[in-house]
């Protein structure tokens, strides 16, 4: 029975439970002539919740854990001898999975029965060609151990699915029946179902923590694997980034960090002055009319997906900079460059800086401005000497948040900055960043357990730590500043 049908059955039983519970409560009330503690609907609700929710949770957990357990069991069945020279265990496991699927397809075609399958032996039956008939093409003949592993995998996932169906149905009927039996006129059904709902609410709010745990653990786990096969010293201090397909790669993070910081610096040099001046103008000078037009227009920039900025960099800004500035000046001939990515990223960050600074400038008390005007200062003097110093911590926070966005930005640099890892100063040259390399290392064809792929996790962890640090610092500064005027 597939998981979809099973969950439909469970939900159906839950609905049935609602009506049974409600009906039972009502009939008890009329039979005994006593008032119910709660509204009849609550009796139904508690039965429905106990029927459906635990069973669905069990099913979700089972579906998640079963493949993991079966994989590890089947993995243990494969001896090292069948793993081809220079090949990897994961490839053999992939074969096992495909053979298992192929056997299922053969069964579905009606080609063989369960009994025949039991007797099928890899060394006797021509399994490769029979599998090819159902659309599973294998590179080489199947070793006995692999075929046995595939049979075992198929068998245990079938047993697992059956066990899951039984367990889920037993839990549904058991928990539902138990709550149904418990119903009497004194049962505090409202409290029970409300506590149940509250537990669900708490569970939902834990998803945020689980996500963070998931991110940190997946990054840490694979990073540790990476440092087992690649020395940490070379990763952090080598100035050469040169991944090779056949091993012996140089995976130094320094050129990538340099590229990241260079692009972010250009972006901030664009975004901070422009964004800040926009915020000042809109907060202090602009008439209501101008503000009502300009502010949403600037904020539209924030709602545009980064892929659009990436395309803009690729087809407009990059060629423009190359043809009109870099080539005439003899500075470079590449349309993807630090300046391209930086400029476009700067545009992306303008609304970010301006709306944050706008809030902060508006939070500076009017009395401070009035005091300054009273002393005879002009408006710009007031802004430069009173408002901005008062808003400075908040503005710094906004800039740090923008910097963290710039470091983590991916699509603009993938499409605008280039792929060459270089330590250079010329902004018209193509350089690359941490995020670009995460994408290229994880979308390539290299094997997963190789340092060339795992390095992406170490890069991801570095990125995570940097952005998290900047965010915490920025939030700390902003929060501290807010307290000053509240």
């Amino acid at each position: 029975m597939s998981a979809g049908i099973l969950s439909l059955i469970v939900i159906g039983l839950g609905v049935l439970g609602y009506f049974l519970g409600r009906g039972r409560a009502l009939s008890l009330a009329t039979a005994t002539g006593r008032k119910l503690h709660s509204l009849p609907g609550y009796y139904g609700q508690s039965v429905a919740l106990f029927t459906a929710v635990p069973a669905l949770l069990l099913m979700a957990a089972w579906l998640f854990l079963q493949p993991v357990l079966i994989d590890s069991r089947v993995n243990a069945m494969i001896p090292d001898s069948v793993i081809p020279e220079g090949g990897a265990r994961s490839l053999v496991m992939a074969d096992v999975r495909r053979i298992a699927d192929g056997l299922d397809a053969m069964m579905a075609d009606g080609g063989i029965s369960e009994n025949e399958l039991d007797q099928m032996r890899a060394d006797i039956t021509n399994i490769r060609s029979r599998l090819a008939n159902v659309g599973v093409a294998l590179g080489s003949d199947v070793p006995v151990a692999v075929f046995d592993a595939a049979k075992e995998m198929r068998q245990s996932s079938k047993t697992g699915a059956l066990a899951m169906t039984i367990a889920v149905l037993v839990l549904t009927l058991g928990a539902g029946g138990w709550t149904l039996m418990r119903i009497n006129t004194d049962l505090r059904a409202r409290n029970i179902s409300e506590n149940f709902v509250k537990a669900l609410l708490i569970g939902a709010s834990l998803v945020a923590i689980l996500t963070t745990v998931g991110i940190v653990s997946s990054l840490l786990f694979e990073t540790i694997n990476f440092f087992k096969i690649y020395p940490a010293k070379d990763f952090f201090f080598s100035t050469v980034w040169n991944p090779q397909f056949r091993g012996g790669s140089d995976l130094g993070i320094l050129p990538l960090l340099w590229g990241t910081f260079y692009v972010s610096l250009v972006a901030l040099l664009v975004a901070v002055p422009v964004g800040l001046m926009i915020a000042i103008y809109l907060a202090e000078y602009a008439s209501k009319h101008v503000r009502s037009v300009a502010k949403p227009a600037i904020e539209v920039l924030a709602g545009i997906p980064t892929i659009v900025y990436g395309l803009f960099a690729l087809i407009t800004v990059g060629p423009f900079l190359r043809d009109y500035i870099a080539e005439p000046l003899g500075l470079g001939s590449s349309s993807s460059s630090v300046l391209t990515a930086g400029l476009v990223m700067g545009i992306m960050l303008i609304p970010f800086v301006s709306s944050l600074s706008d809030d902060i400038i508006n939070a500076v008390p009017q009395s401070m401005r009035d005091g300054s005007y009273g002393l005879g200062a002009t408006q710009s003097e007031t802004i430069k000497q009173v408002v901005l110093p008062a808003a400075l911590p908040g503005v710094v926070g906004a800039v740090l948040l923008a910097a963290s966005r710039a470091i983590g930005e991916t699509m603009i640099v993938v499409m605008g900055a280039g792929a060459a890892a270089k330590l250079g100063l010329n902004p018209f040259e193509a350089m690359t960043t941490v995020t670009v390399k995460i994408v290229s290392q994880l979308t390539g064809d290299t094997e997963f357990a190789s340092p060339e792929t795992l390095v992406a996790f170490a890069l991801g962890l570095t990125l995570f730590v940097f952005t998290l640090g900047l965010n915490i610092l920025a939030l700390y500064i902003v929060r501290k500043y807010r307290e000053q005027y509240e």
Partner: protein
Amino acid sequence: MTDFTSSPTGANGRRRGGSLLELDARTKRRNASEARFRLMGVIAVSIGVIALIGLLSSILMNGASSFRQTYITLNVFLDPAKLDKAGDGDLEKIAKVTTFGYAPLIQKAMEAAIKENGAAVDGLNAKKAAELISKEAPADLRRFVLANPDKIGETVEFSLLAAGRIDGYFKGRVTMESAQLDRNISPEQLMLADKLKQAGVLQIKFNWAFFTAPDASDTRPEAAGLGVAILGSIYMMLIVLCLSLPLGVAASIYLEEFAPQNRWTDLIEVNISNLAAVPSIVFGILGLAIFINIAGLPQSAPVVGGLVLTLMTLPTIIIATRAALKAVPPSIRDAALGIGASKMQSVFHHVLPLAMPGILTGTIIGLAQALGETAPLLLIGMVAFVREYPASPPEGFFDPASALPVQVYNWTTRGDPAFVERASGAIIVLLVFLVIMNIAAIMLRRRFERRW
């Protein structure tokens, strides 16, 4: 003090005998600085607005032409001698004829059309003339024949895709000069195309196939469409909506209405605000490591993309929902509690319905963000070349699919400049979706916004 009366300017020497209305040098300087500062503000705002206009117009100018496509209308004789040699209409035998078997039919039809319209160009043989038609056309023809085997032996009018270079010629991307250097097209072929256009054989029509067709290979940009990508994006948005709305609302209700003020709650809140700032690509790594490698979900599947985007959208929805819940005045809760409702009843029967418009607005904005997100989807394999439409849900959630923004990225990595046009066109489609969603959010807010 005598000095003071004799020279009214005072010790600093200002306004020596001048009028009060006449500005001195220092005031002028200060006023000029004021004007300069103001000008800088105007310039900054203009830079922002110009950047927006430049961005949008660059995409529009590059992409608008992708909504029109050049077609060549031909009367193709579906020759039974070629397609159904046995003549018994057996579909299996007809299916054995590959697209190579259909190409000569098109070539013949092209020859006939040229002859009929007197459009022949010197130095252009029949094979070269047939190259005006996309390599995708035989496949289209074959699909038609397999769907209507009874048409074999008849002459059927087909609107066939013109080759990418021909399409580019009518859109200004290819010129006579560039054709001279191009191996894929010759000036003679362009001249033929011009003549055919005058004869009305070649038309430029609205490109419906752009919205429905699947992706095509590197050499056939004219056939590439967004069908699979739009379907994949819709599937993902469905998953994101079904998961993130209940989860987000439940989490916000707990945090806003029930959570005690303690460290545990603080931890959850710090977590949520940090998740909102984690770079999107890190969520992609999470999806790859947890959903694909550990949970064993298939690569490139909308379900994985949907889960990853759900986790990314949750903070947005939670923040919006909490703001909406906070905006409901406490008097509503007090009144409900006062007439005997439980805390849970007051929240679900009174507070939540009142906060719903705000929650939905936040959800739509969160979905719009998720729709444009690219980087995490690259890591979970959605960048793969997918030509098959995913099945209908729920099985379709596990089939490989593409997504709109990923399709854009995918097209920009290809060599043919025609794909840049397609990518810009896809961006326009994406932006139209986003504009619709945002307008819906704004209308929802206007319609139901309530001031207490």
